[in-house]
């Protein structure tokens, strides 16, 4: 069991996060908290840790959905645009409906954002399966279409959401002032659900089967089209959820929201170990991948490095990591082949 744990990809990622966290804790220095007057570590404090998790949560929630698509052998470039459209749609509907009680506001906002995500995801899935066009092309197109719809319908304005939604998204849950754990908790819940879905249900195993070998899956009687559509639906749904949490947390939505997030989301999934050729990946690893990417961003600032290097550092870390992983896989395959030959 210990060997299995040591071999798991999650443990490796956790170790890297802990290592980076340790370096940051040692190197960050300290400052006086203006409220308490106490001297606190500039990284290892509850504000920074929850803030880091919050920053990661929007990517991570979408990364769980993107991982499903990637495991099935596809790709979804439209999640950032779904994020924008779902947030804008929820904000516009709530504005049009006027003041409501908190529960109704929450229900309408969540319903609209999730509904828009669901519709967009379904549209992506049906287009990919129905037209038999590579998902890269379809979602590249919908990425622009959906952002364009958000742009036109919102007239490019930033639309405020009701304060009651922000109060929910920024509830401190007894942790103390200025500590907002709700996005982090949603991220953990989504990751747990994604993990159970992928590892503990027949539907989840079907996704791995389709991504691992689509032809064999077809001969085995799996309904490929339905499974492929399903992963895009879930990806869209989770983008809608992330949009709802994000717009509620920050208090507004605009068509510019989520610009470029698709790349962070895909990077999170890939850093989390998902294979772009399909058949490999996990929800927990995707979340950890998102956390690591945000932690790298955080470290650039905590260590007072020139932040203009952020993209170079993140991009290089992703490329080098994947190249080393592939080299390792080839090395292992050769070693196994030599062993079999002997």
């Amino acid at each position: 069991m210990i060997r299995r744990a040591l071999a798991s990809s999650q443990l490796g990622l956790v170790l890297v996060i802990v290592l980076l966290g340790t370096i940051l804790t040692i190197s960050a220095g300290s400052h006086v908290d203006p409220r308490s007057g106490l001297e606190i570590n500039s990284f290892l404090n509850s504000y920074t840790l929850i803030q880091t998790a919050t920053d990661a949560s929007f990517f991570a929630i979408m990364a769980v959905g993107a991982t499903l698509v990637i495991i099935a052998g596809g790709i979804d470039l439209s999640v950032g645009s779904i994020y924008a459209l779902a947030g804008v749609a929820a904000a516009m509907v709530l504005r049009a409906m006027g003041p409501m009680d908190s529960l109704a506001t929450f229900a309408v906002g969540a319903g609209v954002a999730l509904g828009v995500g669901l519709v967009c995801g379904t549209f992506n899935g049906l287009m990919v399966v129905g037209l038999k066009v590579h998902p890269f092309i379809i979602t590249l197109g919908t990425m622009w279409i959906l952002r364009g719809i958000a742009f036109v319908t919102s007239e490019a304005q930033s639309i405020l959401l009701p304060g009651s939604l922000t109060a929910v998204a920024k509830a401190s849950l007894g942790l103390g002032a200025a500590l907002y754990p709700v996005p982090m908790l949603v991220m953990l819940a989504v990751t747990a659900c994604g993990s159970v879905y992928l590892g503990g249900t027949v539907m989840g195993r079907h996704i791995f089967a389709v991504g691992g070998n689509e032809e064999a899956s077809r001969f085995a009687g799996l309904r490929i089209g339905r499974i492929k559509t399903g992963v895009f639906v879930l990806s869209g749904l989770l983008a809608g959820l992330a949009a709802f949490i994000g717009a509620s947390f920050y208090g507004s939505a605009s068509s510019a929201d989520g610009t470029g997030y698709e790349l962070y989301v895909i990077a999170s999934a890939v850093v989390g170990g998902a294979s772009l050729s399909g058949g490999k990946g996990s929800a927990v690893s995707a979340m950890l991948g998102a956390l690591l990417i945000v932690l790298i961003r955080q470290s650039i600032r905590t260590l007072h490095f020139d932040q203009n290097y952020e993209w170079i550092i993140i991009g290089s870390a992703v490329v080098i990591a994947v190249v080393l992983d592939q080299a390792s896989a080839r090395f292992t395959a050769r070693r196994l082949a030599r062993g079999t030959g002997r």
Partner: protein
Amino acid sequence: MTRWFGISFATTAIALAAGCEGATPATTAKPGLRVAVIAKASDNPVFLSARTGAEAAAKELSQKHGIPVEIGWLTPAKEDGQVQAQRIAQAVNEGFNAVLISCSDAGKVNGAINDAVDRGVPVMTFDSDAPESKRFAFYGVDDIKTGEAVMNELAAQMGGKGPIAILAGNQNAPNLRKRVEGVKQAATKYPGITIVDTFYHVETPQDAAAEVIRVQNAYPQLRGWAMIGGWPLFTPTLLTDLDPARTKIVSVDALPPELAYVEKGLAPVLLAQPTYLWGYVSVQRIFDKVQLKQDVPQIIPMELVRVTKDNLGTWARQLRDWGFSDVPAAYLNMK
């Protein structure tokens, strides 16, 4: 596991390499003033000059009062209100004593500004305000009046008649929308002026110049451009693509690459925001508020500087003195 060691190795190695160039050591608690500057985007030269101004003010204040003043540049690489909100929270978490921000999306940063103030970190805005937040002051131009000034100058250049277009940058930016509103309001005073449309674009020099050329081809009758930001004038493209005898431009901003347009007569008037002062004045006001416990007005108006051929040399030397290293020597020698 190899992937994770790869990530670890790559992150550490590259971060250390990057850090060698631009890092300042992480600080432990010490008396003084640390100001986090969060502009809209670090690839925009106007914000780089604001950074230069902020750093100059910090140096002067440190020397004058014997209190270390440090500037932390936390500006996102590209415009993103959500990232700005995250940077405000990070600044507070990392022990900065004040935040200076130009808001990409006021709705997105209101909450983060209020949180920062509630945690004892005062926030000041510049260039683009968040008036509904708890920020203690705003320093910048009045955007409506800026738009009006652009239109009035353009009308004067065109003799009060002819079709014009408005070049408007990012449609999401509230300050730019106000400037457009100002241009349109002022245009109503000139019955001979017709606005064919307002054109939005990605705020890069190339995208902006391409948009101008596209519009010019689509509306060959155009005689004037009201540019509420100087994006296309950062490239020399329009110097050859537009005829100064036929077309006149009046634009906000007058940074070194734009000065050639004044000299050639294509943009006879540029309305410069002294962007260096965004940083310089704001850091001084923050020092007044935080260190000297003085009252600071909520709105600190910035005046536009009218740049024409008559004061091109003076303006060029002013830019050089503010730290711009790319001011053409020919202009420095002008009157």
